[in-house]
């Protein structure tokens, strides 16, 4: 079974967020593998362990993406494809999906996995659009994948603690939700073995897709409210009333 895992290199979760001079994005910082993609990779590796085959990792972005690709090879992927692209930020979700779809198509995989969404833009669309462009059936928010005679049976997360089983034919595309599996840590053995694994580079120009965006990110700002603790004063009864109101209206968790 050939599985392609599309991953993204994103700013580190704990990195400080500073808006750049142009006001359009954040300044260069430290980068890491997008965590939901780590879960997608884990799912792929487990499927390969059970059914054999190949796990190919794919990512678009500038040169620094190579480091993250090597990490995925160290975690166990068989080979990697780097879509060299320096203007990823200027493309919208459709544009990026076109790029990835063009790179995936010649691989003709049985299964394409992506993380549910990225930690920077958080659109959660790339995988869905890639499925559309490649004409693959798809499902999102997947926690568990099982291979069947005819395709795949997957466990999908629904709102409010509900789940659903979906059956799909092969080939298919799935976007993987975090937390479905236990992630594996990078090992010394993995890193040593990764040195000999292939990382193939293909430029965005070679893929020749339509890059003109229909949606533009005009500017970025810092949110007005910073997180601070609201202490609710008064008697027990007063505080309780205030709390329930806040939870209902402000935090909307009730």
């Amino acid at each position: 079974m050939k599985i392609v895992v599309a991953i993204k290199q994103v700013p580190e979760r704990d990195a400080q967020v500073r808006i750049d001079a142009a006001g359009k994005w954040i300044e260069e910082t430290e980068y890491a593998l997008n965590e939901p993609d780590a879960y997608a990779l884990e799912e792929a590796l487990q499927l390969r362990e059970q059914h054999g085959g190949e796990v190919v990792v794919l990512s678009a972005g500038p040169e620094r993406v190579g480091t993250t690709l090597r990490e995925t090879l160290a975690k166990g992927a068989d080979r990697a494809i780097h879509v060299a692209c320096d203007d990823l930020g200027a493309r919208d979700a459709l544009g990026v999906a076109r790029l990835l779809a063009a790179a995936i198509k010649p691989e003709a995989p049985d299964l394409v996995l992506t993380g549910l969404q990225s930690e920077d833009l958080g659109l959660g669309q790339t995988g869905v659009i890639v499925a559309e462009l490649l004409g693959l059936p798809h499902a999102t928010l997947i926690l568990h994948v099982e291979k069947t005679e005819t395709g795949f049976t997957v466990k999908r997360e629904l709102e409010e603690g509900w789940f659903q089983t979906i059956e799909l034919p092969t080939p298919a595309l799935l976007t993987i939700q975090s937390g479905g599996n236990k992630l594996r840590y990078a090992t010394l053995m993995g890193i040593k073995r990764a040195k000999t694994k292939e990382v193939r580079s293909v430029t965005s120009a070679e893929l020749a897709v339509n890059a003109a965006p229909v949606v533009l990110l005009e500017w970025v700002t810092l949110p007005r409210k910073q997180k601070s603790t609201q202490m609710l004063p008064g008697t027990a009864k007063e505080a309780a009333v205030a709390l329930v109101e806040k939870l209902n209206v402000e935090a909307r968790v009730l």
Partner: protein
Amino acid sequence: MILFPTLAEPQYFSLFEKLLFAALALTSAAAFWSRFGLVLDKILKSKQDPGFRLFPIGKRIREFVWEVLCQAKVIRERPLPGLAHAFVFWAFCAFALVTLNHCATIFGFGFLSPSGSIGRLYDYFAAAFAIVCSVSIFALFVRRFFIRPQWLGTKLSWESGVIALLIFVLMTSYLASFCVADASPSARILWWSHSLALLTFLPLIPHTKHLHLLLSPATVFLSRGSFAQIPPLAGDEDFGLVAGTDLTRLVSLQAYSCVECGRCTEHCPASNTGKLLNPKEIILGLRGYLNEYGPASAEPLLGKYNSQQAVFQCTTCGACEFQCPVGIEHLPILIGLSRGAVNTGTWEDQHGSRLFLALERGSNALGISPTERDRFIEKNALPLFDGTQEYCLWLGCMGAYDPKGREIVLALVRVMSYLGTSYGVLRKEKCTGDAARRLGNDLLFQQLAEANLQTMAENKVKKIVSICPHCVRTIQEDWHEYGTPPAVEHHSEFLARFVSQLPRTIDSGFSPDIESEGCGGFNPRIKPTAPEAALAPEAEQTTSTLRPEKIVYHDPCYLGRYRNVYDQPRAIVSLAGELVEAPRNRERSFCCGAGGGLVFLGEETGERISHNRVHELIATGAQTIAAACPFCNTMFRDALAATGDAAPELLDIAQLVARTLPQGGVS
């Protein structure tokens, strides 16, 4: 002649006797070599130890003399049985010439004439040892077979019984030879008894744990050179101790040297609290592996003879290695086994993975955003290190993120300000990698060490002071593999240098009328709500101010056994009250249970190590427990919480000092 008896020797041996003896001797030697040669072969066929240096040889010789010839470790830990064993050993040494002579006489080459003055003197010398040895071996026999101490194991060792009997026969037959005449048949019988005992003993040596007679002097001499030393990995295919092919000569030698005395297990915190881990069994497991599979096998080490579960119960406290009288180095072996599991990804532990992932992605072992550390620094206006200050104050993960760890840091900061020390904290810190290192994740450790070394170089850090013995150890010893770390010391070492400048709570010539002069004067002891809440001069002068508070000091493993720092923290504690010792103290201190990365892993099975220790500390009757490590502090805090409200107070030594500082000082 009765007053000064001589050793009786048969004057004449028949040809038959000579041939018989020769045949028996050859058989005995062959039986000996068939096993010993095999063991030697396995040891020599093991791969070489990377980074092993024979020189400087002075230290090796000194340790050899102290531990082997003087039997220091054997005696120190278990004095009476230890002394008994020492006598047996010394008797063996004394008997060397006697035995040689004994075998030579049958062929007419005897060189120690029992009637000559030298011979006689030597015979008496040996006889004295024989008496002492007989008594000792008898006592040891009674201990093993009748008293049956727990640490020798539940199975009775018949081979020990046989060996004891042989030694007894050897000694008594020698002594009896003084009481018979030279030419008498008794002399011949005694000579043959002695010989048979000898020839039976010889092949038994390599077939039993008495192999240590031959190996342990070498084992002690060929130690790695320092305590708990983790060897570097050699080359791209070395991932630690995975299979037989990874066993090195030192490891094999040590595995075969084990005398099964059980001192390691006796002091192991895991073994003492019902865990699977038993250090003696780990070593014997390796021996079993070598016996069955040998050093060229690809069979996993963690399988038939040892379990992964046991290995990951090790807190790396080092009590085992510290105690071992034959020079076995348990820690490189245990960590080698963890390395083998972690570096190859065969260790699948939920909490372990989470720890590694937190360190992979972030900067600290707790998985907390570094903005929390920034906020802590900002809120307390800690100066940033800019290369001009004398010390870099290393916060560490606990000091930066744990509420109690932060209190310790702030207490130290108060003291440093009081002393006028110039210091700064780094803008960014990454975990030193202690937990990753002890759990065997070399990839992660290398990344952390290299990143930190670079930060040190960039910031021009020359001296570090830290509240955490784990950080200190990792910086000083483990980072060495990837670069040159700055000088580092623990805050107890730092504070101890200024003991004379720091105020004492208890003045020996105390009188309540003495006017307070700020530091060094009378400071009434009141239980503060927070360490920083200093003492008001107009406080109560009654209650317990007249009797100094009892403070029991707990030696952290990584400060005590690992770094040999015992007196400096005690000097600090003595400033604040009456120092009380726990029964298991100094080198015998009992671990708090956090080390080896275990504090980040799931719950322990069996009794909690920290609870075991806390009960011991409470039983001293002290009002305060003094800690010198933020991990000990956190483990004890949990354990004390389970004890109830009457629990003693728990403070770090920095907090003890800060408490005595005059209020309104520099802060």
